């Protein structure tokens, strides 16, 4: 009883401190609110975002158009670009540098982030975990994005300083994109674009620009055999990859496709010779009753423009060949067995349904990593033979509801089924579930307060036939300027 009272009063204190501190500081994991665009067009964040960083239909069209308004962009620009050559220089090319432009002022946005957490009590045998942690992760992010003319766009985001779990220090996305290059091949508008650099894969639901305080569990699932074999694949779906991507959004963006060739070593230099491939396709079906508005960027609602009623289905596939035993100078190098190749893949399907103030979306995914077992099982290996693959499956489902334009309710369910993780002692069962209800408040268009509760899965307590559930409550704010 005393313990429960103490917990309650501590929770109340944590909430009170959070409420006071949100006035000053706080944020959520990396997002893509771009104040530079707000300045360029002298428009509010809500022109493109319905719950930033989540994009509404107009924001999606803006992004797909190379960070330009979908129609008559020039008429809306309030901050004239710097011309890097008169337009007539195009005729002089190749005897002159092809003319371009750059943003009239530095296209920078800044964000400070911090998430206050309250955790359930962790058994002492697992080590000490503070019950409350004020503003960790903690990051200051710089975001720069814009265009260098009609067909070139760029994006850079970098966490200048970061700390704590789920913080992403260093460069996130840093890429250059050539938009509508298919135009020169006689293809319909936006059929073919090329993106190069470091970028988050064309995932069904972005992690880098997620509205949630915590990451999607299925994206964070790696192929690790642990004691069950040699598989030690660091690849994570939600980490930016370095590579080249071609893709397009023909048919007014209703169909989308992309193919990327990447290092597969997350946001790090290549660690092997082989490259990985990622493919995604999706089709959106516009369900608006009024056929005349289906081709518009936004639907015409009785109280103003709104997102189209629609449903989107998609699928994705990632293939790579992880390689082990590459470096003969490494102390772990095994002589006389050669490079160990362990192909792997991730495959999934997703959907997104939108209707007025309600959205429901989710995905399911299956992961498969080849797992090789050393022969003999003990002593110095002389070779490897195929063992049980490391597999996992799972997904997520999330619902959003706008009670008011500034008050959004969330409910998310994450699930991962990993027999290998179970055997390695990560969970009580093969399947790990997490339920995360939340509320988000847009205090201003560029200032958001978020609350999220996580009911975690049961984890075994070492050296005891008992399990505990690591639950937590997180609060933070996100502001940018």
């Amino acid at each position, binding site marked *: 009883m005393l313990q429960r009272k103490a917990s309650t009063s501590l929770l109340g204190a944590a909430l009170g401190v959070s409420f006071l501190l949100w006035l000053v500081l706080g944020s959520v994991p990396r997002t893509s609110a771009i104040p530079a665009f707000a300045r360029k*067009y*002298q*428009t*509010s964040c*809500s*022109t493109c975002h319905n719950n930033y960083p989540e994009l509404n239909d*107009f924001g999606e069209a803006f992004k797909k158009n190379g960070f330009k*308004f*979908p*129609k*008559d962009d020039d*008429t*809306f620009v*309030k901050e004239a670009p710097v011309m890097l050559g008169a337009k007539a220089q195009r005729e002089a090319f190749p005897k002159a540098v092809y003319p371009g432009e750059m943003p009239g002022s530095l296209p920078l946005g800044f964000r400070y982030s911090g998430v206050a957490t309250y955790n359930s009590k962790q058994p002492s045998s697992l080590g000490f975990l503070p019950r409350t942690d004020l503003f960790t992760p903690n990051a200051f992010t710089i975001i720069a994005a814009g265009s260098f003319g009609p067909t070139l766009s760029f994006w850079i985001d970098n966490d200048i300083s970061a700390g704590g779990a789920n913080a992403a220090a260093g460069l996130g996305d840093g890429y250059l994109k050539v938009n509508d290059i298919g135009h020169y091949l006689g293809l319909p508008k936006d059929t073919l674009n090329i993106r190069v650099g470091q970028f988050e894969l064309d995932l069904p639901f972005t992690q880098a620009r997620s509205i949630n305080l915590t990451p999607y569990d299925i994206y964070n699932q790696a192929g690790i055999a642990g004691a069950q074999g040699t598989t030690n694949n660091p690849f994570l779906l939600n980490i930016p990859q370095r590579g080249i991507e071609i893709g397009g959004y023909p048919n007014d963006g209703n169909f989308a496709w992309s193919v990327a060739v990447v290092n597969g070593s997350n946001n790090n230099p290549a660690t092997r010779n082989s490259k990985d491939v990622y493919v995604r396709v999706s089709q959106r079906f516009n369900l608006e009753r009024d056929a005349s508005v289906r081709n*518009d*960027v*936004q639907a*015409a*609602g*009785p*109280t*103003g*423009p*709104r997102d189209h009623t629609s449903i989107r289905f998609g699928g994705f596939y990632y293939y790579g060949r992880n390689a082990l035993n590459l470096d003969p100078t490494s102390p772990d190098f095994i002589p006389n067995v050669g490079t160990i190749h362990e192909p792997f893949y991730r495959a999934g399907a997703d959907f997104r349904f939108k209707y007025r103030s309600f959205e429901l979306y989710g995905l399911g995914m299956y992961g498969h990593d080849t797992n090789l077992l050393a022969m003999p099982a003990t002593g110095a290996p002389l070779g490897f033979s195929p063992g049980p693959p490391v597999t996992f499956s799972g997904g997520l489902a999330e619902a959003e509801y706008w009670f008011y*334009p500034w008050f959004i309710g969330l409910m998310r369910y994450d699930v991962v089924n990993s027999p290998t993780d179970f055997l390695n002692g990560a969970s009580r069962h093969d399947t790990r579930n997490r339920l995360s209800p939340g509320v988000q408040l847009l205090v201003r*268009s560029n200032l958001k307060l978020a609350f999220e509760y996580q009911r975690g899965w049961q984890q075994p307590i070492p050296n005891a036939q008992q399990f505990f559930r690591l639950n937590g409550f997180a609060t933070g704010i996100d502001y940018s300027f």
Partner: protein
Amino acid sequence: METFKKAPILATILFIAFLPASLSWAGEIKGKVTAQGMRSPENIAVYVDTIPGKSFDPPSQHVVVDQKKMTFIPHVVVVLKGTTVDFLNSDPVGHNVYWPSISGNKKLAHNLGTWPKGEKKSFQFNDLGTASLLCNVHPEMSGYVVVVATPYFAVTNKEGEFEIKDVPSGHYTLKTWSEEGKPVTQAVDVSSGTARVELTVKK
């Protein structure tokens, strides 16, 4: 010869006969508004307040408020009660026009919906007061419709100058409305010719 002798007399008689009429000829109110603590004296509505016992028919011609480059044009428009305003969309994006109240009366809130480029929606303003025009998808957009009781009104230019023409002679109450400043009231006498007024609007 006799005709010539009679001409001055006739002219005098005619002048005396028409003198009362000339005294009721329209004058004008000209002046300047000084803004204190405000960014600019521009877009301040200056109008003759309700004249007891007098009512005016609204014009048949509609007033136009356009939406262009995500801006309401003009930013401030003054209309006589009963005037119809046409809200035009000249942008290649969907726009919306609504007002949450007229001078704080939320029962008079109205939402015109959404319409595409080149189309317009009309509304007849039958209630005195000020409607704050908003767009729910572009919250930075702002405009005002000031509905007044007389057809004698103007909106100041960048220098704060205004001119109200064709005001019948008489004693009136002049009022101001501005986005940032407090309303000002001043008495004004209009005879034939120009009545000059200096007003100060404070934040």
